[in-house]
């Protein structure tokens, strides 16, 4: 049977990486190996391995979790906002959760 998306398992990866330095180190050394500990779909695993912030946002990852992962990946604040916006451009609207984008694709909000 095809596995359906597990937003809970996906978000758990971020929760544990963000708050646990030992898991952060493991993620840096062998991210693919670390991800075998989680019950993820192929799309979720690929998005994580590619650090595809836009797709992870569209999948519904809570922004409070994704923000810190983006920082760990070396993505700055304004680039992080743009990657989420780009994600909705490429992959469509946010699929789950309460962090949906409410402005239009061409609107730039922050720092105005």
């Amino acid at each position, binding site marked *: 049977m095809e596995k359906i998306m597990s937003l809970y398992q996906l978000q*758990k990866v971020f*929760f544990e990486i*963000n708050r646990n330095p030992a898991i952060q180190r493991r993620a840096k050394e062998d991210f693919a190996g670390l991800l075998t500990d989680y019950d993820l779909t192929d799309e979720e695993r690929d998005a994580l391995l590619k650090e595809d912030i836009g797709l992870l946002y569209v999948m519904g990852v809570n922004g409070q979790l994704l923000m810190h992962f983006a920082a760990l990946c070396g993505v700055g604040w304004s680039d992080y906002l743009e990657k989420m916006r780009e994600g909705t451009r490429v992959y469509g609207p946010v699929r789950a959760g309460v962090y949906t984008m409410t402005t239009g694709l061409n609107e730039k*909000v922050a720092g105005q």
Partner: protein
Amino acid sequence: MSLVFAGVCSHAPGITSRAEIADPALRDPFYAGLDQLREALEASKPDTLIVVAGEHFGNFFMNNMPAFALGMGDYYEGPIEDEAFLKIKRRRIPGNAELSYRLIKAMMNEIDVTYCEEWKFDHGIAVPLHFLTPRYDLAVIPANINCQGPPLAPLHRAWAFGEAIRHAADALPERIALVGTGGISHWPCTPDSGKINEVWDREFLGRWTSNDKAALLSYTDEETYRDGGQGAFEIRTFISVAGAAGGKGNLLHYAPIPIFAVGCTAATMAIV
């Protein structure tokens, strides 16, 4: 002694992390409002400060998400965020486990509370403390209302949480201060970060400063999400303070500051 101080303020990470790129004409009056809040807090000569925040997965996750939680440690650590990002140095913050124990035990007569002997402060507490207790010499008791992972406790339970703090504090010999942090409208960590609904914020602040319980509790989560964004679920922290204090609010500062991604607020509330 009793509850001796009640106030609220914003806690957005941009308040410290993006301080240097903010327009001083917007930033400095807000910082002055936070200074006024600190001075009022200090003048109340508290023995401890309860900070009610809506945390952001520093401690709690959807595997085990308490609706209401209080810290019960002799110390805490924070901020959990990268120090260079938040521009607040990570440190130990003093607590008072024995006082927490008595407070929580009394509150449990009215409301079910999760207690936590370990707690890592995120920006929801670390940013307010940076301004309000800059010497980190006041014992802090962290409190949390789940504002992140629905289902969330309804607003009338946030009010009851505040009332439970009040009743417990009034029965203790110590002088207890209370600060709620968060909201009001904002869309943090989304592409809409920086969007602020000033009209909605001012309407909420009007209800809050007049301590109009019925009006404060009349928001549905659907309305709040539509008009104030997912960040506005944190009105629960302000509502808990209104339930605890019982008096009128005194708005020290409110102004939308998009680079801080929130309508920046500082206010006290009379305790009656």
